[in-house]
């Protein structure tokens, strides 16, 4: 097996042996259980006339609640990716664990790519697995499914990969705690930058709107989150948003349009840049 894949396997094995995967599975199942119970309640609540809600209203409320629940999942994914990626290389350099491995015929680039690959597999599995369970639970409880579930998984998974890539770059130079904290703060700032850009769009102020564009270019997590929201919005809700005009854009839990294609192309380039930066940074680091 090539060294890159050996390192990737080792990374997956480590998270498994350290019971991170087990903890995430248990927590996810608990959240899925509670949210299934909550979503089921939507179908049984009554309005002021004493009647249960009509199916269209159930679907609308469910879609909005699902966006909030997904925000929590994307937060867990981002948090986990940042916390796990933060010490990925730095802790092994500091402890000396990498010394004996790098004395083997292993390139530093293979270590970086292998670690990224191992965690990327976990991020993808978590995004797909949690979405599968949550959407199955929502479907069972309310009969509602978001219009684009596959795109939803891709956007949320990509958001986790962005945080993982950022954490990896930082971990080539900074200690685990510092790298993890910076990645988390960057994620929150990226979200706030996106909200500021939305306000600019709502006010039709180009300068303020550009804050969102620039923040999306620097750290595309919020852009991908908007893509996930768009994948969850039913057509009727989208039509209402569009009818409301630019004001409807000033909402961090709504998306009128999917992320533009050039932006998605930039995300791919961004991943490449982060990996190249990680490799260069680790190659030039003294260990």
């Amino acid at each position: 097996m090539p060294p890159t894949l050996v390192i990737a396997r080792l990374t997956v094995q480590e998270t498994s042996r350290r019971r991170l995967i087990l903890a995430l599975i248990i927590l996810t199942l608990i959240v899925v259980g509670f949210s299934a119970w909550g979503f089921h309640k939507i179908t049984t609540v009554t309005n002021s006339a004493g009647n249960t809600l009509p199916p269209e209203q159930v679907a609308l409320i469910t879609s909005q609640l699902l966006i909030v629940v997904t925000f929590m999942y994307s937060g867990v994914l981002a948090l986990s990716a940042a916390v796990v990626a933060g010490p990925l290389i730095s802790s092994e350099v500091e402890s000396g664990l990498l010394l004996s491995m790098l004395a083997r015929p292993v390139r530093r680039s293979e270590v970086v790519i292998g670690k990224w690959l191992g965690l990327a597999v976990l991020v993808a599995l978590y995004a797909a697995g949690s979405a599968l369970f949550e959407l199955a639970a929502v479907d069972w409880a309310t009969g509602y499914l978001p219009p684009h579930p596959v795109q939803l998984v891709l956007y949320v998974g990509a958001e986790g990969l962005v945080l993982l890539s950022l954490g990896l770059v930082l971990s080539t130079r900074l200690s685990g705690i510092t790298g993890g904290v910076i990645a988390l703060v960057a994620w929150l700032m990226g979200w706030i930058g996106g909200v500021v850009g939305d306000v600019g769009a709502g006010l039709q102020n180009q300068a303020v709107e550009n804050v969102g564009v620039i923040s999306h270019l620097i750290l595309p997590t919020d852009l991908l989150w908007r893509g996930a929201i768009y994948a969850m919005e039913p057509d009727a809700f989208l039509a209402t948003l569009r009818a409301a005009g630019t004001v409807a854009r000033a909402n961090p839990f709504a998306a009128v349009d999917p992320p533009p294609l050039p932006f998605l192309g930039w995300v791919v380039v961004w991943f490449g840049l982060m990996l190249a930066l990680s490799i260069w940074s680790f190659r030039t680091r003294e260990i």
Partner: protein
Amino acid sequence: MTVPRGEVFGFLGPNGAGKTTSVKLLLGLLKPTSGHASLLGRPIGDLQTRRKIGYLPELFRYQGWLSAREVLALHCELAPLPRSSWKDEITSALETVGLTDRAGDRVSTFSKGMQQRLGLAAALLGEPELVFLDEPTSALDPVGRHDVREIIRGLASRGTAVFLNSHLLSEVEQVCDRVAVVDHGRVIASGTMDELLSGTAVKVRVTGLDGAGKGELAAFGNIDDEGDHLTFTNLKPDRVPELVSTIVGLGGKVFEVSPRHQTLEDRFLQLLEEEEK
């Protein structure tokens, strides 16, 4: 400086002299700012050469969540060794370092000494042509140190070159064919043990000498001053009567004079003192 195949080479120096840095440079873990070196006939940093090299770092640490056997399997895979040979290689390495009984236990349950033994086992995998051992006995008890000396002798007997970084001079003296002494990143002496330890050291037990009196004795060469015990690290035996009469003349009372062959420690201290001057 050259280390031939099959030789046990000791690399000595005080803390911060550059011993570990030199090993990391040779292994390609650090990039040199100037100069050049080659390993097994290839420039340093060559990936293919690393297939034939074993390395026990001074800062030894292995995946605590793997078992000893799994750590060695990982190193077999990275080396890379043919999969068919892994089982025999791992069994033999574990047996050599005395960890057979703990092969299936997680490394996180190992003592520091056991982890160092595991590191040594990893360095022995695949019958390397050159083994770097950086302070290989720093965490070991006397039995462990004896075992490591035996392992080093075994490596040398099958033609493996061993580059031993250590500041345990008695250990180096026992196993090394040749040594180099390094200080502030520079080799200040090198040669075989016989070449380096050709002088005689004289130990004198004396009282009644003050600092000025001891200063007068500098004419007899470097002195390792341990209070009442003064060791003249390189003094010819025919100068002993002159030394004793000088001490008596300075008001000192001589209780014991014992000339002996210079040890590596005597020579090491002498070299460092000369270097400081």
